[in-house]
């Protein structure tokens, strides 16, 4: 078990402080997932808060059948996907919000040149991830940004393992396509092969 049962039990019983202790270690990951799913810091903060509130309400339904972090990921993911579905027409965020995000994400320890370069990369990646479909985005972010194993992603997204695999591989292919388009590289014929592979 990856959490202390004492605080979990107390939190289920309605102890708010126990819940705070319980949830504390997961704040950063929760926020990171929201940030990637929503693409915007304000939205991410709102969704992360919503996810915490929903986790509190649904805490009774967590029966230890999976790791707590998996369960929380699932709650968070659903909150984001619900919201994205709700406002389907809003595709990507404005350029200023992106720049803001890019600039604020810079590691203060870096030299200005490195910072500029990595901010540029981050901006590109952020934008490219934002262009993926919701399902692809969720799968790719969980796998490649959060580094979760396929099995856990299958639990979080509530789909079977093969679907997860094919979603991730498709998502990676589209991400590469978007990036190469944006970097003005002609798409390599080889990467087309990868795209053609898609769902078998």
């Amino acid at each position, binding site marked *: 078990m990856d959490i202390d049962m*004492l605080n979990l039990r107390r939190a289920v019983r309605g102890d708010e402080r126990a*819940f705070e202790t319980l949830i504390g270690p997961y704040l950063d990951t929760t926020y990171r997932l929201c940030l990637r799913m929503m693409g915007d810091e304000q939205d991410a903060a709102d969704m992360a808060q919503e996810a915490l509130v929903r986790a509190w309400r649904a805490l009774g339904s967590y029966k230890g059948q999976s790791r707590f972090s998996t369960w929380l990921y699932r709650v968070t993911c659903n909150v984001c996907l619900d919201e994205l579905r709700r406002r389907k027409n809003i595709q990507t965020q404005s350029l200023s919000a992106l720049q803001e995000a890019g600039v604020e994400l810079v590691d203060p320890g870096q030299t200005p040149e490195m910072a500029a370069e990595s901010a540029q990369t981050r901006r590109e990646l952020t934008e490219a991830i934002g262009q993926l479909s919701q399902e692809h985005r969720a799968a*790719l972010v969980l796998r490649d*940004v*959060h580094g979760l194993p*396929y099995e856990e992603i299958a639990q979080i997204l509530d789909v079977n393992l093969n679907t997860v695999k094919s979603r991730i591989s498709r998502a990676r292919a589209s991400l590469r396509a978007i990036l190469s388009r944006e970097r003005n590289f002609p798409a390599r014929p*080889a990467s087309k092969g*990868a795209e053609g592979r898609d769902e078998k």
Partner: protein
Amino acid sequence: MKCNRIVEAMDGYLDGSLTPLEMGMVESHVEQCAACREELARRRALLDQLNRLDEDVKAPEGLLEGAMQRIHAQRKPKRRAAYWIAGGVAAALCVTAGLAGLGAMLMGGASKMAQTPMAAEPSGGYYTNATMDAGAAYDMPTAAEEEKAWDAAAAIETPKGEPEAAPAPSPAEGAAETMVQGAAKDSAEDGAQYGLKIIRDAHIEIQTENYDGDVERLRALVEEFGGFITSNDEQGSSAYNERYGSSSRYSYMSVRVPSGSLDSFLEQARQVGIVTNSGVTESDVTASYVDTDRRLKAYQKQYDRVLAMMDQAGTVEELIQIESELSRLELQIEDCQGQLNYWDSRVGYSTVNIYLDEVRRAVAVTENATLGERMRSALADSWYGFVEGAKDALVGAYAALPYIAVWVLALGAVSAIIALIVRGVRRKNRKR
């Protein structure tokens, strides 16, 4: 082997999900084919970038606080709603039971059976149901308006006590402070003259069966050690507990005790109940302390010098410049002074967070319990649960008595009247 087969396998290769044979095939192909090598490197770089994309991202401050405020605000109306719903359900069930009883009685006519307390069982049952409903209603969603009202109320509430997070030591100042930093450099050697500055804080979680007594005991203990309570947050009420049989009271006390007697204080506090969690954290702030103190002195010197320059200032611009420099230095001095005061206070007095949790039965947590011990404690737990359940059932049945009494009286009265009428009719018949 064709290139596109290899490219297809690249993601699997990077994930490490290929068989060793396939891995070998990809590797040997990549060694020979420059295009695939390049593609693989590009994909690896992309994955690497994605992996590191968010590693520095931290949740915004106030995320948890905001969420907890919403959670807290949403709970209150539910509790109130639970009472209303419980009351409503109980009333409805009583009325239904009453009507049913009346109907049955009317149809059954003037039976002598009416005297027997036949309503006893169902009535008791209904009461228990109503109580349980109250618990279930706890989580029922409330009307949006109500929620909004509570959100508004929560917004007005003053925020809880300031968390005692140490303000980050101010980063190195601009180029103007080279002198200041130079002064701070040899601070380590002079550290001895300040003595060690060590902050020792502790936390302790205690389970208690005697909540009120132990809260008092802790208060007395704090006083005895010359400490004081900075915050005490108690939740849950005994009235609620007696009513619903759950013991959800807890107290979250933040106390300060002189750091010299922290250990003996903790030892005493451990005697209060069953300790489920405790620990002491120490952090050595000597280096930062000395550094800040040096900076403070340097700033003060600088301030005096700039102040002296004021007399020589000729133009208004110069005066304004000096003024702004002075106010900048004042800020720095206040900042350093504040930091030092803060550290002095943290070093002199240890913060102890005490979490006192009321339980109906405090159980010591044994680590590495043997099978026998676990079995024994499991049996003890289930026996305890059984006894508590039986008690609750008894309380439920007892609480139903007033309802039973009222219905028995009503039924008795009605049946007596009917019996009188019947007797009257028979007498009339006999007379005929």
